[in-house]
């Protein structure tokens, strides 16, 4: 793949990733100066003066410093453009909920007109440039290192992102009443589209799709059975964050989506290797295919489960630390912050493991059994 362009020597084929990188860099530069696009007034901080710094303690003997600073800056957009302002800001050094600012940063303002005088408070930091820069860096690395396959990987992520957002809007329009139907159904569309992009339309893709959907569905069914048998003891839906609708179906939808990618990853790996094996040894039996598939699957399942585990559970660290520092016990902290992530990891793990026999079974039925049956006829 990396040398695929050498033969043609076409200028465009060789240099397109670099052109995209340069165009992207210009876009990032544009985002750094996009203040005019915002309706909210933006202040560029030009100088910062520290007014005071006091020691603070709470009832749990935590110590922190509360700092008061005076920010001077100039408004960079809107009707008040060019006006200078001073804003006072108080923050805690630990910075869990409040933020200290420094020279050069841009912040969004809520402006108040008070008897003809302009005053303002800071509503948020402008983060779009940092975001755009990191997106640019990722895409640049991807295209330069992986070229065409990188581009396809990017394409599938972008397509899935757009679909994801459409599904979220649809869910909002139906007040969250059919969240499981929407995201369950969309999981199928996601899987089909991604596999079309990664594999292309052929028998291998259909087999992979079947294994992916089957594995994900199976994990949810198993989870629901375990939930019913254990009466969901130790599953604290009230600890779910950002919940605006019924938490249980939402949690299941999150779990389906969360494990979908890993299950797809795994079935793609297993089935692609088995297809390659079949090409290499055309007279391999269905039983042997199943056996080698199980071995391949056994090797990748552990690392895959850990991928999801770290994604689901590492995110809970800031909140868990807050709970611990508020003198909660380890057990209570675990229940209220980490338990749902752990449940999600375990359900996904079961899905990942159950996909292995499923993928092997489908493959050996489709290519192993069929072929050997065909040979019998000769």
């Amino acid at each position, binding site marked *: 793949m990396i040398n695929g362009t050498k033969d043609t020597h076409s200028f465009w084929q060789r240099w397109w990733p670099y052109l995209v990188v340069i165009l992207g860099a210009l876009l990032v530069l544009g985002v750094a100066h996009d203040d005019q696009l915002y309706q909210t007034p933006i202040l560029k901080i030009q100088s910062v003066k520290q007014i005071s710094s006091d020691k603070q303690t709470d009832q749990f003997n935590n110590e922190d410093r509360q700092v008061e600073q005076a920010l001077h800056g100039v408004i960079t957009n809107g009707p008040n453009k060019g006006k200078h302002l001073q804003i006072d800001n108080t923050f805690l050094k630990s910075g869990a909920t409040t933020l200290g600012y420094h020279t050069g940063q841009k912040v969004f303002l809520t402006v108040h007109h008070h008897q003809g005088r302009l005053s303002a408070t800071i509503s948020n930091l402008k*983060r779009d440039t940092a975001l755009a820069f990191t997106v640019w860096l990722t895409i640049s*690395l991807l295209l330069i290192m992986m070229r065409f396959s990188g581009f396809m990987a990017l394409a599938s992520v972008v397509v899935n992102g757009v679909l994801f957002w459409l599904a979220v809007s649809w869910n909002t329009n139906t007040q969250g009443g059919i969240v499981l139907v929407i995201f369950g159904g969309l999981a199928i569309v996601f899987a089909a589209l991604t596999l079309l992009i990664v594999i292309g339309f052929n028998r291998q893709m259909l087999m992979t799709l079947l294994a992916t959907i089957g594995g994900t569905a199976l994990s949810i069914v198993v*989870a629901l059975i375990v939930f019913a048998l254990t009466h969901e003891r130790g599953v604290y839906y009230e600890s779910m964050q950002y919940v605006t609708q019924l938490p249980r179906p939402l949690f299941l939808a999150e779990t389906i989506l969360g494990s979908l990618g890993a299950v797809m990853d795994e079935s793609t790996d297993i089935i*692609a290797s088995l297809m390659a094996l079949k090409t290499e040894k055309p007279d391999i039996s269905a039983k042997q295919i199943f056996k080698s598939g199980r071995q391949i699957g056994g090797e990748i399942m552990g690392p895959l489960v850990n991928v999801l585990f770290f994604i689901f559970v590492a995110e809970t660290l800031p909140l868990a630390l807050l709970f611990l520092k508020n003198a909660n016990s380890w057990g209570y902290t675990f229940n209220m912050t980490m338990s749902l992530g752990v449940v999600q990891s375990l359900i996904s*793990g079961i899905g990942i493991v159950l996909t292995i026999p499923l993928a092997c079974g489908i493959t050996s039925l489709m290519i192993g059994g069929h072929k050997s049956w065909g040979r019998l006829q000769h």
Partner: protein
Amino acid sequence: MGTITALGLLLLICMVAVGGTQGLQAWISLIFNFGALFFAMVLMAFHLPPVLVTLVTGVIVLAMTIFLGGNDSSSTMVAFYASVAVLFLLVILIIPVEHWAQIQGFGQEDSEDLEGMSTILGISYLNVAISTAILSTLGAIAEAAIAIAAGLAEILEQHPKITLKNLQNAGFKVGSQIIGTTFNTLFFGFFGGFLALFIWFAGVHYSLGEILNDKILVGEVLMVLFSMMSVIATIPLTTWAMVASERQARKKFLK
């Protein structure tokens, strides 16, 4: 029996049924990783420097995941070295970006969770955010490193006389095969977990500008991107490490 215990035991049974000893190892590495994560958190609560704790935990976790995951000892060694190199490269990237984006701590969307809580913590939440980002990529780094190293080990086994140049090309080829599906694992893993937040954005009608500057969303997207970059970096680093180890092995063989 609690649901978590039941699911954990069921996972153990499934893993052993499918993978035998390897399944047991996979289950142990998962439990160990949970222990390591929890222990790291407790150390941070005792005011040990979060980033340092994370780096030590990270190296240990990578070792456990890789050595309990693979079975070919020479390729797992290479995978481990490469993954540690990726981890340190990633830290060099994550620290400045997190200082720039300032996504640490909690956003306005979290205010319900924070009710009645003291936020006088004495722990730098910027460092906690850096730690969180590093920790969330560990699984992805380990998985990619194992995949590349195992793929190359198999090629070496089948074609022991392959030139080093071709071995390197093969590494990139294996990489190009895994990158598409790995990206989707990461994308769905992260975005599935934050479905509720996106529903919140849609429900409260955030504008595009508000979403692109939102503390929690930017933090989340940065984590996805760090993970993706770590996978991209793992491909060449593992390949080069494999080529270097093969070059040394051949030199020894010639002597």
